[in-house]
């Protein structure tokens, strides 16, 4: 049996098994706990790297598929598989998860419980990125949300403003959990409606896609379901005005959780939109996306302006994330191969960048016990390495060429220019705003004269092991940013056909052409056959 058949389960279940193993390890062995966590996330990372290097770009489509019946009575299958988009996000998550485990070495309290929740969270997110069955998808999606609650509630920190508590961590984590769950259940209703109205008695995404290509839902139905899915998933994306859980959630979370949260969790929303809402509801997408394109401009500009007004480092990066996810949504809304590729690339780039940013802020906070910008300053004297990484993160965030963010934002702009020039111009303005607040952060934190209160007890990442997470993230940004070709080809193999299929559904196109362009893949056809036998 080739490795491809069990690659995805390996990636998925390594952290889960790790979490189970941790339950058996006594609490007074934190080193062992950490080592197990490093090991299992390392296995996942290796698996994700293997997946991305061995993905057959020429063949495209879903690969490394695993198909097992799960709940055959309802047509639910345990169906895993990744296409170009999925494999990239898998890598993103593996990177963030692995570096997050390393960054979490600074957690000293209740280490065992922490890693159990953390690994559960990682499992959930992996599951989402590789699920090809709506049930599987939702299953892992919710699973990824819940561990956030204790992770922030126990190990987080209150968000303070001038010494007063602005958002308590309890408030932040409860809001985050409930908000995301609310979004998820709204999406769930949409998914169920989709399942029902399709009449296919299957949750299998490729099968549904093939069926809907032949017999699409009526336009009215699509127009109903699409906003349910888009808003439901948009909450986690996070789409304006449903974003308010995110900055304070980032701010209250412990650094590794912020990394995962801003780096990966927020991508679940946009990924779900790309994976489910767009291909299954093309007409709904065509109908609603112009509205979305205008709303997300609010994300970009508004998020940027609010970030300008913040003084808590994590809140700044938090609002910046909500601003930058606007580009992702804009790329989706523009719905061209270029913009969609750019959007996914940005999901990757922003994920890594923001993970890096939160790793840095975490290091700062652990040592200085403050994230309040006016209290900081001159830290480049004490922590030159981290300061260097900070400059890199700020520059990546500002869209400096050489980092993945530049390529992706450029692609979004180029791809969207024909459709929504005004929105693109506003988006480009957002880049300017980003550099304003990012440079303010860098200057306020690292530059300026050395402050006596930090001297002597703020320590740089010195050993290679301490530097490792930062180096991994910086390299990921630089490699994909300076030589984006391979990753773009990977993404294009999936985004191209996706957009093509959707645009087939533009009202002015003859419906006959649909069938020509979306032949059901042999694998999927057999999947649906199996399913019909089960019934």
């Amino acid at each position, binding site marked *: 049996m080739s490795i491809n058949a069990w690659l995805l389960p390996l990636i998925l279940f390594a952290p889960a098994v790790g979490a189970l193993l941790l339950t058996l390890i006594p609490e007074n062995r934190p080193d062992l706990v950490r080592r197990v966590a490093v090991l299992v996330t390392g296995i996942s990372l290796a698996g994700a790297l293997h997946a991305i290097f061995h993905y057959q770009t020429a063949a495209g489509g879903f690969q490394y598929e695993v198909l097992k019946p799960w709940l055959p009575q309802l047509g639910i299958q345990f169906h895993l598989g990744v296409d170009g988009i999925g494999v990239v996000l898998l890598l993103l998550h593996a990177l963030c998860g692995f570096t997050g485990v390393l960054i979490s070495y600074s957690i000293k309290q209740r280490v065992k419980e922490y890693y159990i929740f953390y690994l559960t969270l990682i499992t959930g997110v992996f599951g989402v990125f590789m699920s090809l069955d709506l049930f599987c998808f939702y299953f892992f999606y919710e699973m990824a949300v819940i561990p956030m609650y204790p992770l922030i509630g126990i190990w987080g920190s209150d968000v303070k403003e001038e010494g007063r508590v602005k958002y308590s961590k309890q408030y932040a984590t409860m*809001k985050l959990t*409930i*908000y995301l769950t609310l979004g998820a259940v709204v999406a769930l209703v949409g998914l169920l409606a989709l399942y029902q109205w399709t009449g296919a008695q299957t949750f299998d995404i490729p099968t549904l896609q093939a069926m809907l290509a032949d017999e699409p839902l009526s336009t009215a139905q699509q127009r109903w379901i699409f906003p349910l899915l888009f808003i439901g998933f948009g909450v986690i994306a996070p789409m304006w*005005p449903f*974003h*308010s*859980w995110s900055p*304070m959630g980032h701010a209250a979370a412990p650094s590794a959780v912020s990394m995962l949260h801003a780096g990966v969790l927020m991508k679940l929303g946009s990924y779900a939109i790309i994976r489910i809402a767009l291909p299954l509801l093309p007409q709904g997408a065509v109908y609603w996306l112009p509205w979305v394109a205008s709303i997300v401009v609010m994300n970009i500009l*508004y998020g940027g*302006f*609010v970030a*300008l*007004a*913040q003084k808590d480092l994590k809140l700044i990066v938090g609002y910046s994330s909500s601003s930058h996810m606007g580009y992702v949504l804009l790329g989706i809304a523009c719905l061209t*191969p*270029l913009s969609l*590729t750019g959007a996914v690339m940005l999901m990757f780039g922003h994920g890594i960048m923001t993970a890096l940013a939160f790793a840095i802020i975490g290091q700062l906070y652990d040592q200085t016990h403050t994230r309040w910008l006016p209290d900081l300053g*001159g830290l*480049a*004297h004490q922590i030159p390495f981290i300061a260097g990484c900070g*400059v890199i993160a700020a*520059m990546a965030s*500002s869209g*400096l*060429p*050489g980092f993945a963010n*530049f*390529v992706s934002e*450029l*692609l979004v*702009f*180029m791809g969207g*220019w*024909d459709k929504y020039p005004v929105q*693109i*111009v506003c988006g*480009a*303005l957002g*880049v*300017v705003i980003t*550099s*304003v607040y990012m*440079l*303010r952060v860098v*200057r306020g934190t*690292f*530059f*300026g*004269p*050395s402050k006596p209160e930090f001297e002597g007890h703020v320590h740089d990442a010195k050993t290679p092991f301490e530097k490792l997470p930062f180096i991994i993230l910086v390299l990921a940004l630089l490699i994909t940013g300076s030589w*984006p*070709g391979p990753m*773009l*080809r990977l993404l*294009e193999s999936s985004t*191209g056909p996706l957009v093509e299929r959707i645009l087939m559904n533009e009202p002015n196109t003859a419906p006959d052409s649909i069938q020509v362009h979306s032949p059901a893949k042999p694998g999927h056809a057999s999947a649906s056959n199996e399913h019909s036998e089960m019934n």
Partner: protein
Amino acid sequence: MVEAHSAAAAVGATDPALLALAGKAAWAILLTPLICAVAILLVGIHRKSFAMAAAVGGLATSLICTLFLFFQASQGHLAVPFEVSVTWISLGGLSIPFGVLIDNLSLIMTLVVTGIGSGIFLYSVGYMHDDAAASRYFGMLSLFAFSILTIVLSTNWIQLFIGWELVGFCSYMLIGHWYAKPSAAAAGNKAFIVNRVADFGFIIGILWLWSVSSTASDDRTVHFATLMARLPVLVESGAVPVATLSVIGLLLFCGPVGKSAQFPLHVWLPDAMEGPTPVSALIHAATMVAAGVYMLCRTFWLFEMIPSTLNVILYVGAATAFLAAALGFAENDLKRILAFSTLSQLGYMVMAIGLGGPVAAMYHLTTHACFKALLFLGAGSVIHGTHEQNIWKLGGLTRSMRWTSLTFLIGSLALIGFPGLSGFFSKDEILVLAREHNLPIYLLATLTAGMTAFYTGRLWFVAFMGKGHAHGHESPPVMLGPLFFLAGLSVVAGYIGIPAWLGEHHEAFHWDVALTSTAAVAAGVTISWLLYSKRAIAAGSLVRALALPQSFVENRYYIDDIYTWYVQNIQQKIIAAGCAWFEQNIIIGAVNAVAALAQGLGRLLRLFQTGVVQTYVLVFVAGVLWLITRYLAVR
């Protein structure tokens, strides 16, 4: 993957072996500094001497390769333009190459960058010898060299933009090299953000241009050569209206306005003097700020189609030249005077573009790069020797720093356009052009030449000639060497036929223009001599007589204040604070309100839960009655 293709039609075929070698050399020019930068930042960050050696060696390699190509091309062995490139992004219909375009224009600019750059790198070895973070400095310097070469050798708009942004980053890092100084950190931020604002227009322009560049048969392109061939056809056929192209041109011009510090985005350049002086020389005098002008020359085929945009460029350039020169009058900081002078000279170059003379602009760019780098290095030498930048606290340097003063004098003379020196020739080209096309601008430019002479004279007479109290020591040979080298260049640059190389057949010398400008220069120098050396006129009384313009100039026309006011009061206090208020009270407030609503609704519902059993019975019975009255249906 690497494809080399040469437009060999021009001067016969090139020998294939030479072509291959030239391709390798071209890549080497671009990539050696990058490799050195990476090496320095990765392994040399704590090894100062390695960093210095790598940086200097890297750029020297580039210089050698450039010289090789230059001689091959000038001898006619190598047909230019000549291009090697790889595909950086290829996605659907979009193809963005990354490569090296070698032609006369890029060769001359590459020579400027690598030649003057090598000198400055070498100079830095001395200048930064005692700096603890010299490795980072040299790493950034190497990265800068790569970035500026990316612009210079660019084959397309996107590559140009990439280099454009990267030089901005390097400039940011180098201005803020001494980050412990708050003013340096602030200056770095300012430079980066002002450039970002300008680049906003620039990238929109690029996007727009790209979007209109498709023809029936071909995809859109950002490639210079393709666009150059395609745009006239598109304009003629009406597919791209001239008005659209004019707007695109204006947007593209935003880039140079920021990078070349044209009015009103010039504010960052004086502040950028917070960086180490070699940086000011290389980045903020010779190369990066000239990149805007270079870009306009590189893409002049676009701008020559849109006269209205050229007009805007002309006036912006002229305004910058004049206003910046006036700012030089009131400045007391040695480097800032040079910075205003740089602004003014950049204005000249941009003006030349506006007048339709890219060759003149490029000519002036080259000579200016030589003498302004010389002036800055000289200033650096002064600062290195005296640790003082205020001209009034200097003085008498001709005695203590003889060689520095000599070279500084040569640079100053070249700057003011002393006949026979390089600045004289290049400025003359521009003035001739102005007189041909636009008389008022010509007069303004001549006046500016006089003003240049005045503030340069002031600088010289006060800082170098004045009764010395500053007892500096002369700089080491590693710093003096580049000074001599650049001084030599400043002298000879006017004689080596740069305009001819750039394709302009030199016309007869315009004595009238030359004489007029020389007269203006002479007047400027004389006045400054009278004021500051001879003290024939009391400077104070003159200042009092010109009180209003004086305060206007001293405050730099209040432009900085306007920007500061905007940032502090509009951006932060109204927009950002307003959004934050909206966020806190409306968005978060609405979410909290929903939560409170749920809680409140729960509390309201629980009003039934009185704990009194008979209430419960009552509600029970009421419920039954409600069911009966509501759902009883007669069939």
